[in-house]
């Protein structure tokens, strides 16, 4: 993507002339409700922009959202501009009031004639400096002025009104930059986008001019059909730009950090993210691993339950009956707390089935330690056998793994995982617990992978 800034447009005087025409037509537009005080049209006598307005691009983001094309932060500044407008006003305000009020209630005033005064207003030494956010979208250009620094000298032909008018102008300036100009630019850019083919030479206004420079690349509207017309080389370049965002950074390979880009969870880091989730499997696999380190447990055996059944007790733990109910309920309640983070008072409803069977209680002292010690250090140990099988699992993409993680502004550990425990805990035969809440239908809880909607180009 490229653009040109055509300085020549500002070079000759025709630009000023064009602004003058545009301004006078805008000020005298018949659609606008004519004020009573104005007794004639507004004529723009003189417009002068002696220097080329400066446009400094501070930041440019090409693809941020599906339909937007470019997003950027610009600094616009122009200096020493001059503007002079002239009109005729009615100075007898009582007469205006008399015309507005029904004659029945209006007392008749003697010799209350109209008295019109020509007024000339000169704005000289206009200096504008503004930081703007520009969004180029499909139908038009959105712009917001964030940090406007406007200064001008005001000179009015009626001196008695000068201070009042100046004060009111400065009061209303923030409305102009907040409301009027953005909507004006959007509307004109809409016209420009649609009627671009017919008259590309017309430049709507001064502000608009900047945006034309910004979006000088002609084919700015990207549709599905446009993609076919794009050359594969360009697409390759684009994809390399996008992929460079992740590939250039070495953070993704660093351990203990879940994402290279803040707010993004990359797929290769998913298992680590999940491993931090409180679940029976995570807990007991690390525990059992530590305990059964000496025993011959194949990496497959460890990994499989890690991905396939998240909240299940590992078989080895069950066999060796190392679990205890308090730890399980603790994990359950933690899960429940995460899923119900909005209301703290909700208590997990458990169905308790008392079994007569006696079991030897598990080793509590070790569990206490391990429950707290759900650290990454242990994870790294577990990682080593896992790494081989990661891709295999990913490609299979089991249906229950359709968890989606949205991009947030900050990295947010997903809070809403609702787990419904099938609490019929038959001690002899423990049913697998299911993730139900992860496939939540609620759109607000919809977790998305970074590029799932628009697949990354390197696939």
């Amino acid at each position, binding site marked *: 993507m490229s653009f040109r800034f055509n300085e020549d447009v500002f070079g000759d005087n025709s630009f000023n002339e064009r602004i003058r025409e545009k301004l006078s037509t805008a000020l005298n537009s018949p659609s606008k409700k004519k004020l009573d005080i104005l007794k004639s049209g507004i004529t723009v006598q003189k417009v002068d922009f002696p220097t080329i307005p400066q446009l400094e691009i501070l930041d440019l983001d090409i693809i941020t959202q599906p339909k937007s094309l470019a997003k950027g932060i610009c600094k616009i500044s122009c200096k020493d501009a001059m503007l002079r407008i002239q009109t005729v006003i009615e100075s007898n305000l009582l007469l205006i*009031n008399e015309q507005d009020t*029904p004659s*029945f*209630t209006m007392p008749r*005033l*003697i*010799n*209350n004639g109209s*008295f019109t005064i020509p007024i000339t207003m000169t704005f000289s030494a206009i200096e504008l400096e503004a930081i703007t956010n520009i969004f180029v979208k499909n139908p038009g250009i959105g712009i917001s002025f964030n940090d406007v620094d406007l200064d001008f000298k005001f000179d009015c032909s009626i001196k008695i009104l000068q201070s009042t008018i100046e004060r009111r102008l400065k009061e209303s300036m923030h409305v102009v930059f907040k409301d009027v100009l953005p909507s004006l630019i959007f509307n004109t850019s809409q016209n420009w986008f649609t009627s671009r083919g017919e008259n590309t030479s017309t430049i709507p206004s001064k502000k608009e001019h900047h945006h034309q420079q910004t979006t000088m690349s002609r084919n700015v509207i990207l549709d599905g059909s446009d993609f076919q017309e794009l050359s594969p080389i360009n697409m390759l370049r684009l994809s390399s730009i996008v992929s460079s965002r992740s590939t250039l950074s070495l953070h993704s390979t660093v351990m203990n950090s879940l994402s290279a880009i803040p707010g993004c969870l990359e797929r290769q880091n998913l298992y680590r993210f999940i491993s931090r989730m409180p679940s029976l499997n995570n807990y007991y696999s690390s525990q059992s691993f530590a305990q059964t380190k000496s025993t011959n447990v194949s990496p497959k055996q460890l990994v499989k339950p890690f991905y396939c059944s998240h909240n299940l007790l590992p078989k080895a733990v069950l066999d060796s009956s190392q679990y205890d109910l308090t730890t399980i309920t603790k994990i359950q309640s933690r899960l429940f707390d995460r899923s119900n983070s909005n209301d703290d008072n909700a208590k997990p409803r458990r169905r308790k089935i008392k079994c007569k069977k006696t079991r030897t209680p598990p080793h509590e002292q070790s569990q206490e330690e391990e429950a707290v010690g759900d650290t990454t250090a242990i994870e790294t140990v577990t990682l080593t056998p896992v790494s081989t099988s990661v891709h295999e699992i990913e490609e299979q993409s089991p249906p229950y793994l359709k968890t989606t993680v949205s991009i947030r502004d900050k990295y947010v550990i997903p809070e809403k995982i609702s787990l419904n425990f099938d609490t019929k805990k038959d001690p002899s035969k423990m049913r697998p617990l299911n993730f139900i809440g992860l496939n939540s239908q609620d759109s607000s809880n919809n977790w998305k992978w970074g590029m799932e909607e628009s697949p990354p180009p390197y696939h």
Partner: protein
Amino acid sequence: MLPYMDQVLRAFYQSTHWSTQNSYEDITATSRTLLDFQIPSAIHLQISNRSTPNTFNSLDFSTRLRINGSLSYLYSDAQQLDNFMRNSTDIPLQDATETYRQLQPNLNFYSSNSANGLNTDESLLENNKKLSHDLKFAKKSLYYGRMYYPSSDLEAMIIKRLNPQTQLMIKGVSSFKENLNVLTCYFQKYSHRNLQEWIFSTSDLLCGYRILHNFLTTPSKFNTSLYNNSSLSLGAEFWLGLVSLSPGCSTTLRYYTHSTNTGRPLTLTLSWNPLFGHISSTYSAKTGTNSTFCAKYDFNLYSIESNLSFGCEFWQKKHHMAINGNNNDKLEPVSHELVDVNPNKKTTKLLHESVPNLKSIDDDHDSSLDIPDHKQKLLNDLTYAFSSSLRKIDEERSTIEKFDNKINSSIFTSVWKLSTSLRDKTLKLLWEGKWRGFLISAGTELVFTKSSQRTLSNDEKNDDAISISAVDVENSNIPVFPTKFGIQFQYST
């Protein structure tokens, strides 16, 4: 034509002895009625009725694009309203329309004179009547409401006489469509020579004060003055809109007199707006029984803009009612009933009416006093010397009276009104007349155009008008076209 409700209002003022000619608002009424008369802008029909002696109602229709209408009710507890009200068949045309306002310079002359005891029998009678009225003053009030449809706007007015000197008037408009509610209060206080008004309006929180002062010299001076049939008034108004902080003020001088030779009234006004530099002077004269002329010159001190307006009325009379020619000492109105209907117009109560009758003075001297001969001779000389001038006054008075009576006794059938303005390049034409019990007024406003620009601005001014669109004007080369025309029928029983 005066709307029916305005006639009722006028009758209310007459029955409650409230003078409208002392209001500053009406200080330029004569020139206004002659220059800026209202022209109906549609076909308009008004049917009015006095249902009971105290209630009046009126129904209006007008067709402009679609049928509009209004329904108005009025209730007043004033007595003898029916003495002052006429139906459209009986009402004289000069009462039914706004025309030259003849003033009564000595409105409160009698009351001030009564203390001196120098009054003729007639004035004493009048005075007694007035005094008695003041004594048994009852708080009369008037309630008026009007509803427009289909726009369902409401108008309401309450007038209350608080005491013989004060009057409170409240006017309100409520429009649902335009989301407009305006209430205006007037408090009017009439004292010996001036009328003060305090006004407050909720539109723009407008506050106003206006005063009219009548310069009246003392009755003793009037006796020696030859041309005492004049009145000089000075008024001023001050306004301030509190919301928009828009000030306004003006001051006006009015001089009303009669021509000494012909007895015809003439009015001069000079008003000045110090804020905006407007100066406007008018000269209105009733040149004959059937014609009135008015000229107005506007000038702005700051912008040096000027305007000259000219207006005239031509009355057509059916026949002249023969009146008895004895208008000497006894000033007898033509018919008492007519006087009651409109004392403003009928008989001008001139100041020198209070001049003692020459004969009665002589009689008094002869009978009651026993004066030595030389003194008597001196007295007689003096009397003779004065009597000539007094007779002259009588002659003048008689000419004035004659003229007034002539107008009042005439039965007019129709009147043409014309008004033109140089700067606006307009010509207004209005015909008003009576036809089979209907009061009809039909008129048009013509605009002389050179460029379409002016017509555009004029069209905007009277947007109510039925106007030719500007495109047509540009195409056609007609320099004159009507901006509004209309006809109005009034019938009342």
